[in-house]
């Protein structure tokens, strides 16, 4: 039952005596306006040359000037097109289907353009392939308007023209070819049929060309394992919607594991349906998104993970392995294995261990299970990188064997662990060209920088999965003088056609088989009918570790560890770091740590105490830490520390993708580059960690905007209780006392207010399913981009002034441990010994060691009886009949009473002017960045309160479209930015007056509850109780 649990957001809250937590509960605006600081500084005040009289003069003059200036409006110019393109109507958005393929993120998307400007990325619902738009893809539109992009071709830092570039590079290439040196194309994974063909043509022309594909975050081991087993370089495809038992050993498959995009399938079975839902068991060391969503999470070290996998193999498939796992883990593995066997073809095992044996074992277990969720027939093509080839290339370059390197979509100087070797090798090549969006670390080391277009300005095609294709089309004319890699190849092969024609031709002959190219382009996706038989790609033996017949035994044997084990991971917000100059992503709080603008070493509480690593919360709730020096084989980095509940003891975690220094604004140069520790492309490293003094200031929002200590925010239950007991037991309606009788808060007698009749017209409700929500954060970025939410920067976030309209609260709870503790307590006898109370209490598991996690997206709840509305002195916030709580910015005078009176803490105050202000040099500070703003939503000004509007601009547009067409509105037409971005089906938006709508049915669902229902605010946002499948079989 939910009320037994204690939820906490931060370790600090577990400290009962914490004055900070108490302060935060009582005071929303912790940060005082620093008047004392200013007035108390007597010296400065006295030494100032401004006298009181001068001050008054200035005040008078400026007031007069301001009022005079206000009397006459500015002259506004309107410039129409000379020839208006037929598809553009000013004020009406156009949508184009395209595909992002930047080497890390691959997804079919819809691009919303207004007056020719792409302003938002949305999901392409036609896409039957993996990968809906995650947070990074949602944010990628901002990369188009990055003011630091390379604006034209460069040679040694000087601008040159494309014609010079062409003649010089072609000559150099011919020279290199003549000198019989090799030409290397070092690229990201394109997975592009046309590019592959083009590369082949290029090699034919120049000879001695090798194409090395390089993924900054490698999946090489999995690729090798798959290739050895199935003869094709790809990754097995998983459809978790077909799995009822999911066992993951170190695979964070809800974020970026093996290309990501598995979350929507996963969520489908997480919603209990007819008493059934999937069971997810996670063995892992870092607290990952997948672990946070798991029904059972077992923290263990990476070397133990290998043993677990081996053991799982022996238990499910057969054979014997010797392991030295502790009992509790052994027990968990045994239970997992029995559940897998029971589930049979509805079970699936995945692993993230970067080891060919481990990956082979996982493939074999799935084969043995006959798993329906496991699909080796349409392998995922979006990772092609080959570690060995990359390492060989660096060695060759260093040896001076390479004549020319042409790079595209990669930044090896930043991402290679041995980047110094690479730079040295680069100097020995006769020709080095980088096709790059930025003058980044690699581009600045190359002779030529070929300015590359953003994917929203490019043509392209991708084979996402075998036989599943996506097309990339430009949605805007190139902003700068750029040329994409493929166009470069066309030039060098003296092919006169454009890349667009080239793709069209390739598709016509190889892919489409008679279907229309224009239709494929319109849809953005195409599922091939001409799936050919697998042609085993030729792989040289030395590039492939042939997994031994008994991979499991080898795996178990390889599980050795010494000291702390580091697991390198990618954050949902940052990925491999190529979008580091994206302020939306920088400000996006990590779903687990709730920390933005940083990467950090995650350590367990026990290890932290041992190593002397500390986290402290300062008075306003902000988080500080000291530093840790992490050393792997002589390379070391110094990083700040976050004590992470759930981190396995003996392990630490660190995110890749931070610490970039070139090609991004100073504000975005955050965190520490962890790639030097990513040696041999292994995400697990043995490390030594020592504490370093100093104080690091985090922008961590986990103590921000707490719900004032009110309980019952997250409601959760177990599947067993959910199936067997009544709703009243696990999801009771809160009661209040009326005439000394318990009365449900929903009854009209206890209400202070009269109910308005909202049964006519539309009445919007948003349902959020805590079971389906994985915490991925796509909605946060979608909201950012739809509603022109400003970025405020690290120091302001630290001051609890983040502007996110939609936050995803992450709650920890430690229910698991209570029962064991009670038993232990009951059995206690005496002070000393195993059952002694002195030692025993201490041993009782620390609540922070392995907590359960719940994610809860919270935005304005649009209360029908809204507390904010009644306190506004100027009636700036009011209620609409359609259920939305309106906010008239132009009426707001900034008293902040509403924020004080809001029980959900969802109102955001503009402490500063965040647009066109050099102090906030993010995207709203330059003309280029402002092109991304949604013209239908006001950009707020200083001193104004703002909050979620339930995307009223979108609901109004839907209504208007229906009125114009003279038709009724169907269910599903109404969407908010967050519900449209949510691919896991956790957010359902609609009109509850349409009784057939999904949301109306969800409102009647037994799991439905309102946040802080006891307050009687009658919100229009509802939540569905989280159900955990704790059934051990």
């Amino acid at each position: 039952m939910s009320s037994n649990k204690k939820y906490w957001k931060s370790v600090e809250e577990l400290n009962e005596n914490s004055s900070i937590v108490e302060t935060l509960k009582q005071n929303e605006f912790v940060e005082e306006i620093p008047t004392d600081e200013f007035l108390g500084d007597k010296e400065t005040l006295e030494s100032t040359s401004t006298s009181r009289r001068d001050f008054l003069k200035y005040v008078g003059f400026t007031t007069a000037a301001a009022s005079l200036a206000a009397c006459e409006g500015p002259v506004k110019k309107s410039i129409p097109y000379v020839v208006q393109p037929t598809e553009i109507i000013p004020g009406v958005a156009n949508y184009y289907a395209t595909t992002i393929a930047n080497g890390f993120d691959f997804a079919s998307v819809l691009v919303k353009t207004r007056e020719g400007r792409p302003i938002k990325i949305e999901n392409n619902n036609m896409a039957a392939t993996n990968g809906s738009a995650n947070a990074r893809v949602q944010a990628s539109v901002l990369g188009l308007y990055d003011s630091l992009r390379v604006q034209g071709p460069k040679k040694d830092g000087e601008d040159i023209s494309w014609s010079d570039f062409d003649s010089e590079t072609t000559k150099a290439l011919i020279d290199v070819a003549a000198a019989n040196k090799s030409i290397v194309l070092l690229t990201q994974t394109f997975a592009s049929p046309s590019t592959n063909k083009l590369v082949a043509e290029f090699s034919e022309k120049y000879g001695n060309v090798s194409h090395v594909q390089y993924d900054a975050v490698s999946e090489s081991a999995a690729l090798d394992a798959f290739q050895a087993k199935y003869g094709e370089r790809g990754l097995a495809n998983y459809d978790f919607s077909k799995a009822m038992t999911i066992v993951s050993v170190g695979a964070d498959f809800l974020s970026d594991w093996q290309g990501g995009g598995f979350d929507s399938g996963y969520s489908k079975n997480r919603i209990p349906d007819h008493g059934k839902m999937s069971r997810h068991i996670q063995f892992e060391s870092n607290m990952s998104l997948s672990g946070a969503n798991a029904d059972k999470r077992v923290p263990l070290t990476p070397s133990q993970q290998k043993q677990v996998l081996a053991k799982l193999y022996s238990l499910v498939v057969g054979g014997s392995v010797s392991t030295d796992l502790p009992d509790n883990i052994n027990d968990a593995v045994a239970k997992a294995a029995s559940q897998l066997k029971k589930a049979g073809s509805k079970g699936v095992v995945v692993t993230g261990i970067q080891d060919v044996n481990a990956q082979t074992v996982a493939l074999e277990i799935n084969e043995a299970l006959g798993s329906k969720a496991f699909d080796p027939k349409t392998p995922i093509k979006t990772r092609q990188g080959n570690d060995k080839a990359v390492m060989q290339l660096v060695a060759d370059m260093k040896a001076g064997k390479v004549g020319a390197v042409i790079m595209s979509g990669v930044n090896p100087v930043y991402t290679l662990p041995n980047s110094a070797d690479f730079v040295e090798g680069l100097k020995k090549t006769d020709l080095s060209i980088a096709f790059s969006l930025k003058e980044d670390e690699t581009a600045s080391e190359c002779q030529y920088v070929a300015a590359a277009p953003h994917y929203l300005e490019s043509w392209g095609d991708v084979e996402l999965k075998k036989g599943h294709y996506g097309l990339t089309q430009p949605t805007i004319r190139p902003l700068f003088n750029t040329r994409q890699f493929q166009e470069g190849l066309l030039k060098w092969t003296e092919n006169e056609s454009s890349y667009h024609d080239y793709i069209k031709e390739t598709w016509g002959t190889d892919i489409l088989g008679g279907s229309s190219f224009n239709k494929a382009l319109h849809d953005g996706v195409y599922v091939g009918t001409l799936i050919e038989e697998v042609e085993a790609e030729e792989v040289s033996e030395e590039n492939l570790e042939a997994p031994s017949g008994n991979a499991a035994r080898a795996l178990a044997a390889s599980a050795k560890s010494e000291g702390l084990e580091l697991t390198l991971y990618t954050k949902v917000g940052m990925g491999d770091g190529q979008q580091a100059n994206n302020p939306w992503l920088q400000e996006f709080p990590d779903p687990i740590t709730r920390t933005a603008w940083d990467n950090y070493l995650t350590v367990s509480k026990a290890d932290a105490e041992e190593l002397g690593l500390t986290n402290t919360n300062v008075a306003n709730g902000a988080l500080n830490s000291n530093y840790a020096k992490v050393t792997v084989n002589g390379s070391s980095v110094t990083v700040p520390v976050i004590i992470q509940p759930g981190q396995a003891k003996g392990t630490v975690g660190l995110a890749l993708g931070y610490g970039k220094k070139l090609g991004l604004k100073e504000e975005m140069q955050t965190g520490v580059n962890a790639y030097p520790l990513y040696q041999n492309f292994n995400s697990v490293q043995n490390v030594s960690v020592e504490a370093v003094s100093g104080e690091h200031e985090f922008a961590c929002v986990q103590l921000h905007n707490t719900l004032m200590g009110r309980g019952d925010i997250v409601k959760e239950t177990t599947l067993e209780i959910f199936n067997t007991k009544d709703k009243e037991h696990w999801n009771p309606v809160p009661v209040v006392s009326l005439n000394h009788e318990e009365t449900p808060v929903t009854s009209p007698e206890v209400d202070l207010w009269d109910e308005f009749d909202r049964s006519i017209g539309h009445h919007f409700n948003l349902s959020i399913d805590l079971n389906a929500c994985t915490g991925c954060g796509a909605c946060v970025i979608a909201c950012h981009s739809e509603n022109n939410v400003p970025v405020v920067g690290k120091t302001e976030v630290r001051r609890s002034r983040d502007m996110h309209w939609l936050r995803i609260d992450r709650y920890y709870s430690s229910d698991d441990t209570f029962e064991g503790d009670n038993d232990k307590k009951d059995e206690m006898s005496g002070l000393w010994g195993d059952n002694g109370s002195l030692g025993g209490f201490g041993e009782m598991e620390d609540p922070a060691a392995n907590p359960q996690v719940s994610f809860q997206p919270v935005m304005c709840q649009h209360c029908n009886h809204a507390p904010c509305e009644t306190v506004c002195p100027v009636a700036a916030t009011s209620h609409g009949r359609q259920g939305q709580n309106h906010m008239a910015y132009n009426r707001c005078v900034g008293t902040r009473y509403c924020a004080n009176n809001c029980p959900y803490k969802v109102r955001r105050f503009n402490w500063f002017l965040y647009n066109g202000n050099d102090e906030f040099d993010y995207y709203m500070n330059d003309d280029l960045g402002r092109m991304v703003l949604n013209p239908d939503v006001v950009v707020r000004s200083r001193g104004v309160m703002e909050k979620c509007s339930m995307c009223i601009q979108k609901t109004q547009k839907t209504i208007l479209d229906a009125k114009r067409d003279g038709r009724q509105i169907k269910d599903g037409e109404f969407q908010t930015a967050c519900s449209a971005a949510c691919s896991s089906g956790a957010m359902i938006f609609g009109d509850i007056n349409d009784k057939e709508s999904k949301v109306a049915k969800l409102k009647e669902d037994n799991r439905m509850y309102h946040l802080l229902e006891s307050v009687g605010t009658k919100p229009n946002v509802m939540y569905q109780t989280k159900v955990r499948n704790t059934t051990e079989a």
Partner: protein
Amino acid sequence: MKKSYQSLEVNITNNMKQVIHRRLSNSILQLSLIVLLAFTTSISAQEGDPAKGKALFNANCAACHQLDKKMTGPALRNVETRLSEEEGLDREWLYAWIRNSPGMIKSGDAYANKIYNEYGGAAMTAFPQLSDDDLNNILAYTAEEKKAPAATAVATTPAGGDSGNSGGISNELILGALAILFILLALGLYLVNKTLRRFAQVQDVELPESTRTPLWKAFVQNQFLMIVVAIFFLLSSAYFVYGYLSQIGVDQGYEPVQPIHYSHRIHAGDNGIDCKYCHSSARVSKHSGIPSLNVCMNCHKSIYQVAEETQQEGLREYGVDYNAEIKKLYEAVGWDDENQKYTGETKPVKWIRIHNLPDFAYFNHSQHVTVAGVECQTCHGPVEEMEVMYQHSPLTMGWCINCHRETNVAVKDNAYYEKIHEELSKKYGVENLTAAQMGGLECGKCHY
């Protein structure tokens, strides 16, 4: 757009209705001159009737041809004479060409091909429906003498302005005379009074001395009255100050000078072009849209100058050279009128925006134009009478809201409204719902 073209000549008469009476006689004179001319020519040219020819010409040929100016096709004044003189081609050739020019080109006729190539390989539309008579009429029309100089001569003669102005002055004269009369009357009364007093003095009649305190003194001494007056004074001045302040930022009547003098009066009024022909996005978008210049060129590719009468009227009444304004358009859009082709050098027009809603107010044209069926004039005023566009309405929130309170929602034949209208009208007990009852006064409907 055929209409606008056909009516060039009609325009003259239309325009004339609007000019003041003094010009009427001249116009009649001019008209009769034209009629006379037409009559005489019709007698001389036995083969066709130029008046009918003109109508036919305007209906069929004018999209591509002018009499005196090369357009999509060649200038056609005296085409028959020129052809027979220069090329030795007779009327039969012309018949064949007009009825089936592509056929002639195909048949390999030398001159047909020459013309075809000269005009960029655009074949002339075939007009098989025109009879010999029709063609004769048209050719008769093209054979007419150019009459432009006469029109200018008429228009430039000073049209008896002095006599025409007398009506205007007479009003002032009457007023002046009245004023003088009143002054004389007052003076007379004063003199009578003075004389009477003198008589009284002479005859020793005692005049009663007035001992009452003067009214203003009594007023000042009455404190209650003073307070009331002070309050009244303060209130009324506050009222006026408030009124003054609240019109700041309200630009009703804003009438900026635009880079091109575009006359809505001529386009929307005289020529009756639908607003939404140019402002087409008003139907589907939040913006009404300033027409792109290619929309102007739909008509102005052929309309390179206005009718002479209109031109004169523009010069006289508004000080605007309409033909020069059309040239400005050509320059902006990069149209080489001489050679009838686009140069590609464009200079987008920087119009000055007249109707400026603040950024925080969301307004959608299509909601009002398409859904509600509101006439453009409801908000924008009598645009069809505006020589220079100006802001007709205050565009204040009060103005918006007032309309929402008074206007019924156009629910007819709109499936979207069916249910909501039925339920809501029952709830409010009304026949027709106003926009306000529909929720049109909620803040969030316009501010987000």
